[in-house]
Every structure is written in structure tokens, then in C-alpha cells.
């Protein structure tokens, strides 16, 4: 590693030494990038970018299990658009609803036709992914998304 990366490694080690909660979250391998854990005035503030939305909920569970009563969870779900992951809409015959949020309670913002190719934006959880095409962006149920091999 170069001069900067060597220093950043030391920062990470120091962070883990002075903040055991950081180490707990790191060891859990939640796939969170740029994780920062600051414990001040009885409140633990967590920031970073999670690969999957479920990691954000897992952080709250882990902190609670370690006796943290007050958490400000500022973790965001990473935008994975740059990966170029594509899905085929795998409905039987109907269109696939694209919703504003990750549940059927959210309003429908558009519909993808059967066999349409959409691009992954974010993985909210195992059940709901944010995807888009040139016209629509929103959340779709993963039961109806079949990953297309990158060529």
C-alpha cells in the first residue's frame, strides 16, 4: 500500500481500538463501506454505505444487542448502478409493477412488460430491489426479476 493507504489502515485500526462498536460492526461483515461509528453523549451515530438495505436493520439489532439504547442510523444503501447488473422481468405474462417504495403498500409508479430488461440501482433487501429502465425507476419484487448474465 502507498503512503495514504498505509495511514488509512492505521486509522481503521485505531478506530477499532478506541471504539469497540466499530469493531463489532466490522466483524459482522455487513458489507458497509466507509463505516464510521461515533459514540457521543450516549448516542451512537453510524454512517456509511451499505451494499444491501438489510445491513442497516442488522446494525440496529447488533447495537441493541450490545447495550446501545440510542442510535442515530445514518447508513445509506449504496447505489449499485455502476455495476451494470441487469435483470429480465420474469412474470408469467403480465406486467411487473414498479413501486415508489419497497412494499406493496407503496404507489405504483409504472409497469415493466414481461421480458423487459431493467438495471439494478439498489438492493433494498432480498425481496425488493430498486431498478430502472430509460423511463421508470422504482422498487420491484425480486420474485419477478431474473438476473441476466453480463456479457
Amino acid at each position, binding site marked *: 500500500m502507498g*503512503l495514504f493507504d498505509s495511514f488509512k489502515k492505521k486509522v481503521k485500526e485505531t478506530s477499532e481500538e478506541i471504539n469497540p462498536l466499530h469493531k463489532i460492526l466490522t466483524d459482522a461483515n455487513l458489507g458497509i463501506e466507509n463505516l464510521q461509528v461515533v459514540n457521543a453523549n450516549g448516542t451512537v451515530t453510524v454512517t456509511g454505505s451499505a451494499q444491501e438495505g438489510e445491513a442497516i436493520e442488522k446494525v440496529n439489532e447488533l447495537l441493541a444487542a450490545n447495550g446501545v439504547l440510542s442510535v442515530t442510523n445514518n447508513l445509506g444503501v449504496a447505489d449499485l448502478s455502476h455495476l451494470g447488473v441487469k435483470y429480465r422481468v420474469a412474470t408469467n405474462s403480465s406486467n411487473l409493477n414498479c413501486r415508489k417504495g419497497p412494499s406493496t403498500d407503496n404507489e405504483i409508479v409504472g409497469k415493466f412488460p414481461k421480458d423487459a430488461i431493467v438495471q439494478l440501482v439498489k438492493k433494498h433487501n432480498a425481496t425488493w430491489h430498486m431498478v430502472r429502465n430509460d423511463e421508470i425507476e422504482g422498487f420491484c419484487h425480486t420474485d419477478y426479476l431474473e438476473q441476466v448474465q453480463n456479457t
Partner: protein
Amino acid sequence: MKKITKLGFLALTGLILFATSCKKDPSAKIHNTWKLENFESAEADSVAVAEIINAGLNYTFTKKGTYNYSGAKTGSGTYEINEAGTSMTTTEDGKTDMYQVMLTENNLQLTRGKEIMKFTANK
């Protein structure tokens, strides 16, 4: 008269060559020991950075193209800086990084993207 002019010309040429040969590259200012004063990075835990800086971390860049650091962390590597003292590459454990450099007698600043390391010269 012609001989005197010729001698004068030779003397002037010699003086210019001497002056030029003595001129230091701007990059030579880096040959010093530098105390880390700040590290700006969105990724780094600011509390941990402050902890390290308070513990002290000094980087020494030698004329031989090597650097080492001691204090809160120890290590070493090699570096190359351009003559103008504006860009530098460092290699440590086989990995090379490039930085933009701002260098004066008393201050050194290395920048890589949005990350900045600031140093002051140890006198």
C-alpha cells in the same frame, strides 16, 4: 581590447553556469522530516485521525528517494517527485500511489482525489 572582451565573455558564461548548477530544484525542499498535522478524508474516522495526530507521526523524505515514518505508526517506502515539486508517487509494500504536491519550505500538502494530508516541516 578584443582579448579583454573575450575574457569577460568567458567569465560571464562561467558565472551563469555556476549559478545554474547551484540552483536547487523546487522538489528538493521535500528532503526533510515532516510532522503530520491533518488528514482530510470522508472515509476516515475523524476521532481516530485526531488520536493518531495527537500521538504524533513524522515522515522523513531522504535524498535517496526513500521515506520512512515513525511515531503512532512506523513504516517505510520509496518515492519519486517531479523537479517542479508538484507531483509525487510513493511505493510501499509493492503498491504505488500518486499524489498532487504543494510544497514550500515549511509546508507540505499531498492530495489524492478528495483526500488531503497536511504536514509542517520539523526544524
